[in-house]
């Protein structure tokens, strides 16, 4: 009948979820950044929120990887040519498609976030998200075809 519930620590501050008498803070669920990606019971706005966070982290990671890869230039033509041959492999091209997905999702949703975040077209935010994602999917499709056909 009884089922244990996993506890998750809360943070100190205005709304620290402390249970009176308990030895440590307790909250029923979804405390901390891991709660950002908990989609149970969430709606479209949360999906947009999660997508923006994940793609944002992905694009940030890419920027650092890009700098590391560019540093190959300092190691001379041989090192760079070696990287270029790797970059033309199908697996690497697939990563390019993933990168394009991240850029499109984050960039297009970023336009929505900017507009809505300054109090514009608030009541159309769901439709705007759907429209931008459809647009992004079309561009991603064309981009993926070009990536794989032109190398």
């Amino acid at each position: 009948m009884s089922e244990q519930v996993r506890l998750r620590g809360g943070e100190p501050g205005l709304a620290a979820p402390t249970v009176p008498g308990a030895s440590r803070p307790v909250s029923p669920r979804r405390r901390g950044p891991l709660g950002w990606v908990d989609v149970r019971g969430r709606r479209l706005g949360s999906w947009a929120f999660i997508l923006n966070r994940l793609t944002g982290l992905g694009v940030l990671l890419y920027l650092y990887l890009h700098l590391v890869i560019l540093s190959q230039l300092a190691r001379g033509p041989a090192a760079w040519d070696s990287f270029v041959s790797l970059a033309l492999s199908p697996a690497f091209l697939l990563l390019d498609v993933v990168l394009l997905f991240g850029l499109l999702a984050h960039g297009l949703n970023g336009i929505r976030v900017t507009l809505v975040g300054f109090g514009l077209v608030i009541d159309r935010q769901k439709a705007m998200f759907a429209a931008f994602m459809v647009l992004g999917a079309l561009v991603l499709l064309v981009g993926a075809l070009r990536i794989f056909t032109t190398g």
Partner: protein
Amino acid sequence: MSQSQPLPSAPPGAARAAADTRPVRFRVFRWKKGDETPHFDEFTVGAGPATTVLDGLVAIRTTQDPSLTLRHSCFHASCGTCGMRVNEREVLACVTNVRELGTETVTVEPIANQNLVSDLATDMVDLYGRLDVVDRPLIRQSEIHPDSEVADGVAEHGRFEDCIECGLCLSACPIVASDPRYLGPAALAAAWRVVDEPRGRDGVAVLALTDDAQGSWRCHLAFECSEACPSNVDPAAAIMLLRRRSAGERLRTILGRRDAR
């Protein structure tokens, strides 16, 4: 605690509905002061076509486990006290039909991101404190109609604005979940009312308060607060409008036209 029990004190004329009663399993969050860990208890309740989650919980407390703690009052979505999480979503239990949930098991939890008091009851002091920060504009005084009869001792009527202080928006917001310093949707929606319609309060000061990294700018547009709100307050829209007003004020300041309004 898994025996099926009919709802107590069925209303008159409910015989036909009683014949249509089906057993529904309730999985209820339990925690009492001193408990090391929370757990879930399961109960079976007879649910008719009009049975709400709150009806079921009251039936459990009345006929199966009198130690079950929950907050409720009006039974018609006015008081906001029965806000809780049902099947992972923030709802008012009094207007959530059990059968319309469409699940064999109804999982009931207290609202998230608030201090627990006992079982499904949470301490609402945090919410009230947040509302006080923005001058608590929830009650406004309406004019007494000249033809109305006013009871002795009543000087004026108080009319509640839409927010029923249920805390569902705070439970649904992913930013409140991870950053307790964030002022939160309920207080920001209340702040927008002060800014937009000061009614003698200091709207400029309230706008300055919300124009902060932990104020309106902390929102990340998940819009879950507005989805959860049972009273059409639309906190997310209010937060965006606060941002627009704040951005406008900043722009005017940059352009040196702050006093030209």
